[in-house]
């Protein structure tokens, strides 16, 4: 068992085209570190210079937006999915 990460089109150049990647991690922040290790370049695309999640990146643990949870410290368990969703639409 592991955490599944759903990769949006914009990031699939980093995963060799894969739309899902599995990693071992206990928090959202650790997921990003693990992605960076296995697929270098991830951290820079998701995090700004201060290490915060970029303004137009939305991260969800299953159905929950991490901004309403604990941000990068939000826990994630084996079997759960982290979705990376760019700039959600409006109107």
């Amino acid at each position, binding site marked *: 068992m592991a955490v599944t990460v*759903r990769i*949006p*089109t*914009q990031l699939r150049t980093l995963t060799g085209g894969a*739309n899902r990647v599995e990693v071992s991690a206990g928090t959202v922040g650790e997921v990003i570190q693990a992605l960076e290790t296995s697929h270098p370049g991830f951290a820079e*695309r998701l995090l700004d210079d201060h290490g915060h999640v*970029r*303004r*137009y*990146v*939305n991260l*969800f643990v299953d*159905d929950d*937006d991490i*901004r*309403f949870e604990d941000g990068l410290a939000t826990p994630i368990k084996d079997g759960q999915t982290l*979705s990376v*969703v*760019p*700039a*959600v*639409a*409006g*109107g």
Partner: protein
Amino acid sequence: MFVEGLRCTDCAAAYAAEALHVCDRCFAPLEVAYDLEAAARAISPESVAAGPASLWRYSALLPADPRGRVDLGAGFTPLIRADRLASELGLGELWLKNDTMNPTGSFKDRVVSVALTKARELGFKVAACSSTGNLANAVAAHAARAGMRAVVFIPEDLEPVKIAATGVYGATVVRLDGTYDDAARLCSELIEELDDWAFVNNNLRTYYSEGSKTLAFEIAEQLDWSVPDHVVVPVASGSQLTKIHKGFKELGSVGLLEEGSIPRLSGAQAAGCNPVAAAFESGVDSFTPVRRPDTIAKSLAIGNPTDGDRVLSSVRSTGGAVDDVSDAGILEGIRLLARTEGIFAETAGGVTIGVLAKLAAQGIVRRDERVVAIISGNGLKTVETVAPALPRTDPVKPSLDAVLALLTEGAN
């Protein structure tokens, strides 16, 4: 068409004019860039006046080929002087941009007409969207006009009229057990699965949102190619306000207005979903999303507005403000507008008028300004919200004496 390409609204990275909506580098929304020098040679007050009585009269500054336009007549709605309302609010010169007059009764017809025209150009087969209602109506109607299949995703608690006024066009309505923001997120993920689906406010959003610029174009044309001092705009995702800003800038660049003639722009939100107003009030550059919007203004109930931060910068750079109004204030705004000017607006219009009243009382919208308020949707769509607030009368016998007695009583 004078489209040069697309560019990122945040980091300015450049892209070709394809079906792209998000910057690969920083994930910010993209916008359309034009060759404005070439457009300036093609557009003039005369060329506009000779165009169709719809937003397609400004096709030189739109991103799709007008020859293939999906056109139910959206846009070129009346701009009317509102002296009685101005007097109630203590204002001088007030104008109303009456977008209740669009084909499906809201400004969303503007953005959808542009988006589906582009979607057909790009070869998409299905028209889709996440919606708080008005967009669903507009997508369903324009898709019918274009002969496309339509599928819309809505939160389950929408007003019944907005659901019926979508299904009637043959659209598939998917009601989701969640908020609008849940619907929007779902659509972001569906895009990845469904190749020839045009989610107008998502993968077509770059083109779609250009339709909102036509509000600025029309206001300028209808004021004999001059710029108002202040425009008050409802804020949901925020793109209407930021694109009105872009529209005025482009008019300056193509010589239809004096370069740099930008009105003050102010935004209006409901107190029950006010992420941008709250950020404006606390002076920060970035809004905090609202998890559970709770307002009768369902068409504005977007807790995570994509263009919220850009609204803040547009409003601050033009000297405007963002404020909010309670549900009671929204209902008052709807009734005030209807009673003084004969326009029945949906709840978003009540938000605009309610916030206009607040800003006028605070002296932020000033008596010496020429003011335009955007009335973005028709009140018949949300009639059940306002009905309980209206006086009820018991039936009366249809006799002369009974009715005259009633009217005398009413007059007293």
